[in-house]
């Protein structure tokens, strides 16, 4: 195998130390001639060794000596006989039966990481994983154990931030350690146990010698690791410089807690006594850490005839929060229940916890005047205090708190100010600049409140009120402010844009104590806002433009109408449908509609270089009436000439790199709109192209993407800022209000607000959506048009030139040979220069338009968990693809070709059908074209073409056959401007008779063409070149 540079990085926590090691594919030279036996521990065949380990992490700033700094460690790995199972089939595919596997020791080269290095590595690992990447660097794959430790470090950091730790002193016999020990209580316990469940075995499979396998339990190992983290994180990295003289053991302990590594060497036997004392001192906290139960308070609403709220005491299982034992049962518990034997200990625990909680809330203390306290009562005001203050304080102290469900949704039940717009049913066209008259009104949750109702509420003087059967929070101060506000301000005017921001929650605060809760509106404005938010009435479906060729599917009509609707409001739209649902045709239809409605100005359509050709083709196919100009490549128009030309077209196609480079001239044009295809290209707001995209002036904006951008909060700002400037505030606002709270603390409120704010502008349909599935054919074919790189174009022309010369000199069989050879070579060039030149060691990325496009598409396919088949005729191309895709995605790619033995072939098929199996299956058309059943794939790629629809269909049917439950998308790759496109056109024209003309004989019919016809066929058209 060629993937020698690949490494899977592993981490294991071993005897208090973090060890980093790596797996790489076996080097052929090492296997040859050296048969290992399992009599004694030997080196793992997949051990990466110090040098590769060093290379892998050097890029992130961890530099070490591969020889001196590493050491030999023993990895206990699943092994059958003499074969060890690697972590990934990227390393090797072991066909042995997993049922017989047992742990056996193997030597690996390990790098011990101190806290600083391991935290750096894990922080970067965690950040890569949150970005959805499985790579630390190209070819450096993050092992699951490494990723796990990144999570565990994150958890440890949370403990330190929230100051959940307490000093300790451990050791004996002259060797001691001052230690910051985490105190994992309350909800942290739940998370800790979830982490234990998540921990891969490999995270604790290393030992220093091969004497015995690791024996520590997972929870203990994880706790030790977290303890080491917390200790290291709490210690100040700075040295104090000056040192206080250490006269006593107390001085020694305190100093060791603050500085250095905490180790204390002291022959003083009194140190043991001190350590014992420290345990005693820690006991109040340690006992709650160790307890299997925690005290929990449950607030219960008053019954119908009741005024009193009840807070009941319970013991809640620390490992199982669903286990609740009422205090009553603990005190009086029946003697035969499952907890009967623990009852005295439980009672003591309950007593201690109540004693601790008593100092937090006096009502608890009062309740303890009984022999067996089990609850306390609250009036409504008290219940409100409990909800607002006490519950949080109790939680922070590690107690459980259970509150009524409506409180957690309290945002909706607060008094808030709302804009009420009554507009007429017809008002002409609306834009964000339109001025709108409105009134302010007060609302509690959804209910509007009149002034008199407000005054009624104010008289109640309770902070919680039951309004129409629902409890809501009322705040006298707020009510008075609201009443004053309403009396002061009645009729107002604002732009629709301002109201929109209030409606979507971008504006949260009126400046006083009142919050905005949105906008209610009638008439056109209500209509507009309602449609925008997908409430009540939806925007109406528009008839597809007459000049649109081809049929829009029902969901496409929705998407197209939605684009048009937002355009009317001059709002930006992000169409984020799954790949294959036809973002292109929806966009083209929307543009056609605008043009039909007398839009004279051109649209600027920006896309990656690899799909310029595709857009051109699709526009020609679906909207032949639209004039398209390609602004791309060396010969593109510049300056005034460009502006002149652009004005004469409906669509100007350009690429991301050019919107920055040619920004000045592009911005000269009055654009009807700007469309960004594969808009994730501007997700990083600091890039030049993102800045240029935002700076372009246009009336309407559309972003197209197939990756679920709403899942990646960090990427959202740049795209939304392009679409609707100002909606999310400045980037630093956005980071503070949304990104950090969501990313660091999973803040549900911030997540909701952001979703509410952005969802009107994002339309994303999945293939699996019910109403989409119904619209989709079970199998649908798409051509994927890609361009050539300059290297490909040069090679292509060289091959053609050579062929032309040869054709003139040959006849008969010889000529046929030349034709077929040339065809073959041109196809190879279209596939990849390295396939023709056999120089893949020069690198394969960015040398082939097809490969670039395939990689982009697979990113989407794999991103949503789909699986695919890729067919090629060429084994060499299969090798190139396998290597490139594995390195790019860090997932194994199966490759079935003629040389694969039956046993292996069966195993590949079996593995591909497994849910956790490799998601990409490469097949050579000959080996895989028939007989197989691969219905777990729902995408089929034909990377190169057989020019015989029957053969291709047969291959496609590997996925599309009985057992397939999903729609199958077939992507046929074609290089524009090359013979591939021309043959494709010929086949399309003669589709009905194609089977007859070209059937069976493959490409032989091409040899019958005349020299001129061949010349025409081979000639490279100018649009072929993508650079």
């Amino acid at each position, binding site marked *: 195998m060629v993937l020698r540079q690949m490494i899977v990085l592993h981490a294991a926590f071993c005897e208090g130390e973090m060890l980093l090691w790596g797996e790489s594919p076996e080097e052929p030279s090492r296997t040859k001639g050296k048969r290992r036996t399992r009599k004694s521990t030997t080196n793992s065949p997949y051990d990466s060794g110090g040098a590769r380990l060093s290379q892998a992490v050097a890029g992130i700033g961890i530099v070490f000596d591969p020889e001196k700094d590493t050491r030999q460690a023993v990895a206990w790995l699943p092994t059958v006989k003499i074969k060890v199972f690697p972590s990934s089939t990227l390393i090797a595919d072991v066909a042995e039966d997993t049922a017989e596997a047992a742990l056996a020791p193997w030597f690996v080269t390990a790098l011990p990481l101190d806290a600083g290095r391991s935290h750096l590595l894990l922080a970067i690992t965690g950040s890569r994983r949150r970005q959805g990447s499985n790579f630390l660097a190209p070819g450096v794959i993050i092992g699951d154990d490494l990723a796990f430790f990144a999570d565990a470090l994150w958890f440890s950091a949370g403990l330190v931030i929230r100051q959940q730790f307490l000093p300790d002193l451990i050791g004996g016999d002259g060797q001691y350690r001052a230690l910051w020990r985490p105190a994992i209580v309350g909800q942290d316990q739940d998370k800790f146990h979830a982490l234990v469940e998540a921990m891969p075995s490999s995270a604790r499979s290393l030992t220093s010698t091969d004497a015995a396998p690791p024996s520590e339990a997972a929870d203990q190992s994880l706790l030790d690791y977290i303890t080491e983290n917390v200790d290291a994180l709490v210690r100040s990295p700075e040295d104090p410089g000056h040192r206080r003289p250490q006269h006593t053991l107390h001085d020694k302990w305190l100093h060791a807690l603050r500085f250095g590594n905490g180790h204390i060497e002291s022959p003083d036997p009194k140190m043991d006594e001190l350590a014992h004392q420290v345990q005693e001192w820690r006991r109040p*906290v340690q006992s709650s850490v160790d307890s299997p139960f925690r005290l929990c308070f449950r607030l219960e609403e008053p019954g119908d005839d009741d005024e009193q709220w009840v807070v009941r005491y319970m013991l809640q299982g620390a490992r199982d929060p669903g286990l609740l034992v009422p205090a009553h049962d603990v005190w009086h518990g029946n003697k035969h229940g499952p907890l009967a034997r623990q009852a005295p200990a439980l009672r003591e625990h309950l007593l201690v916890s109540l*004693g601790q909680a008593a100092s937090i809330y006096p009502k608890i203390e009062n309740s303890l005047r009984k022999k067996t306290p089990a609850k306390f009562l609250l009036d409504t005001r008290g219940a409100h205090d409990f909800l607002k203050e006490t519950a949080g304080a109790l939680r*922070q102290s590690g107690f459980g708190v259970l509150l009524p469900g409506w409180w957690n949704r309290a945002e909706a039940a607060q008094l808030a100010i709302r804009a009420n717009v009554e507009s007429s049913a017809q008002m002409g066209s609306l834009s964000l600049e339109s001025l709108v008259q409105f009134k302010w009104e007060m609302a509690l949750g959804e209910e509007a409140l009149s002034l008199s109702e407000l005054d009624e509420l104010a008289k109640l003087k309770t902070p919680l009120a039951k309004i129409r059967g629902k409890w809501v929070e009322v705040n006298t101060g707020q009510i008075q402010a609201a009443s004053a506000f309403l009396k002061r301000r009645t009729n107002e005017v604002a732009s629709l844009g301002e109201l929109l921001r209030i409606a979507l929650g971008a504006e949260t605060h009126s400046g006083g104590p009142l919050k905005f809760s949105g906008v209610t509106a009638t008439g056109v404005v209500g209509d507009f806002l309602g449609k925008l938010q997908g409430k009540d009435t939806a925007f109406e479906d528009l008839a597809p433009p007459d000049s649109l060729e081809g049929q829009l599917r029902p969901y496409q009509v929705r998407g197209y109408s939605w684009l048009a609707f937002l355009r009317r409001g001059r709002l930006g739209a992000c169409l984020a449908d799954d790949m294959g649902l036809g973002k292109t045709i929806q966009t083209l239809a929307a543009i056609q509609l605008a043009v039909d409605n007398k839009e004279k100005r051109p649209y600027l359509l920006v896309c990656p270089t690899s799909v310029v050709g595709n857009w051109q083709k699709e526009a020609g196919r679906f909207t032949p009436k639209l004039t398209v100009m390609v602004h791309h490549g060396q010969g593109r128009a510049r300056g005034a000439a460009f502006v002149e030309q652009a004005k004469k077209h409906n669509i100007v196609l350009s690429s991301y790199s050019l919107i920055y480079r040619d920004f000045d001239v592009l911005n000269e044009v009055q654009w009807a709109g700007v469309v960004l295809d594969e808009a994730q290209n501007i997700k990083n707001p600091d890039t030049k192209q993102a800045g240029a995209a935002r700076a372009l002036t246009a009336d309407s904006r559309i972003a197209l993407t197939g990756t679920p951008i709403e899942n990646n909060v960090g990427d959202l700002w740049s795209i939304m800022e392009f679409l609707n400037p100002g909606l999310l505030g400045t980037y630093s606002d956005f980071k503070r209000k949304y990104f950090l709270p969501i990313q660091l603390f999973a803040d549900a409120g911030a997540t909701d607000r952001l979703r509410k704010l952005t969802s009107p502008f994002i339309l994303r349909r999945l293939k699996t959506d019910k109403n989409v599935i119904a619209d989709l054919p079970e199998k649908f074919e798409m051509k994927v048009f890609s361009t050539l790189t300059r290297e490909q174009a040069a090679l292509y022309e060289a091959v053609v030139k050579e062929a032309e010369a040869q054709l003139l000199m040959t006849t008969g069989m010889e000529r046929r040979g030349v034709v077929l050879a040339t065809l073959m070579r041109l196809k190879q060039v279209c596939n990849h220069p390295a396939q023709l030149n056999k120089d893949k060691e020069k690198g394969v990325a960015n040398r082939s338009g097809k490969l670039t496009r395939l990689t982009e598409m697979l990113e989407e396919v794999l991103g949503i968990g789909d699986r695919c088949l890729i067919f090629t005729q060429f084994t060499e191309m299969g090798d190139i693809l396998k290597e490139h895709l594995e390195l790019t995605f860090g997932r194994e790619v199966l490759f079935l070709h003629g040389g694969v033995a039956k046993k292996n072939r069966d195993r590949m098929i079996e593995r591909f059908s497994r849910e956790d199996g490799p998601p990409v299956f490469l097949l050579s058309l000959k080996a895989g074209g028939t007989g197989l059943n691969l219905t777990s794939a729902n995408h089929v790629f034909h990377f190169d073409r057989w020019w015989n629809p029957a053969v291709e269909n047969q291959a496609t049917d590997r996925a599309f056959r009985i057992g397939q439950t999903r729609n199958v998308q077939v992507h046929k790759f074609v290089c524009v401007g090359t013979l591939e496109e021309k043959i494709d056109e010929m086949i399309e024209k003669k589709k009905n008779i194609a089977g007859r003309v070209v059937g069976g004989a493959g490409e032989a019919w091409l040899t019958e063409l005349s020299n001129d016809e061949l010349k025409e066929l081979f000639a490279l058209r100018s649009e072929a070149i993508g650079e």
Partner: protein
Amino acid sequence: MPDNESEFDAGARAPEPAAPVSEASSPAGAAAESPNGRHDPRNRRDRYGRRDRFRRGDRGQAQPAQAKPPQQGQLEKGAAPEAAGPPAAEAPPRVSRAPGGDRDRNRGNRQGGRGDGGGGGFSQRLRPTKGGIKVQSKKGFGESWWAKRWISVLENMRMGTRLQRGRTYARSGQVLSVEVQKGVVIAQVQGSRPKPYQVRVGVKGMSHKEWFRLARAVSSQAIFAAKLLSGEMPREIEQAFRREGLSLFPTKLSDLKTSCTCPDWSNPCKHIAAVYYLLGEEFDRDPFLIFTMRGMTREDFMGMLGGRKAEAAAEIMAEEEETAEPEEPAGPPGNPDDFWARKPAPDNLLGESGEVQPAALLHRVGQFPFWRGGDKFLETLQATYIGASQRVKQTISEF
């Protein structure tokens, strides 16, 4: 015994407010000291200091000073004496002054008659210690009401300047170790002699019957046990004692059993007072100390309350662990399918970011008993807590 207080009334006399205790405000001997005198041992004077020097080497001490084998729970007894300051022979300047109260004068005269020859002039120096136990709080000797109650017993004893000396001792680290045993506290106090004195402080015990009655009264309300267990003395417990005709704290001198190996015949002497003050601070943290001093351990008392001993419960728990179903081997399993792969981690691993009480856990467990460090324990560590929290929060926001 020199003095007897009348029955102490809980409410009648509030303990002294926790005002800073300074030499300057002390009733006697203060005028002769410089404002900074507290920090200069040579300015320290003890009217018995000189007599101490005369008696150096005298093995026939007034109080028995048994050598005890070290026991569990013992503090670092005598860890520092060898580090004591310059030998007493490098005599500090003697400062003559008038004798204090009547009893003291008598005492002084009598001592003088035993061969002092100093002519009524008393000089004193505080023998510096390294790493003695110092009161941590800047003000007072204990914050809680029960600690103040404890201190007030001592302060009502008309000890005159001995009380003040005792405070100074407690502040300057003259107490070298404190060991709490069931029924008695034994401490080493550095006086002006090189060899520390041994101080014993005990409180009159209670009979088993009395304890039992008390336990019955206390178990009628959960609050007593709950508060005591969580480190707080419930106020009502005094009433519970009184209803049984008992008293939780010593109320009169005869309730205390104190002794010191120093030559001062007065009891309590300043060494006893110093230990007493330090105990006040420890009461803050551990209200159970008063029970322990009266011969009742925490475990025994809880056992009486629960009607069943806590140890028994612990035994049952341990037993259950033993009889629990044999667990699977703790090491990782060998099946390669589960070996390498992880499951998804829980959400929100960092936890809520809201306001964090500074060093809440540290304050929950409180002061370290009889702290002997040069830096203040709680203040120093609280700074570490806050610093670490801020530093980590800052760091992770960069990733």
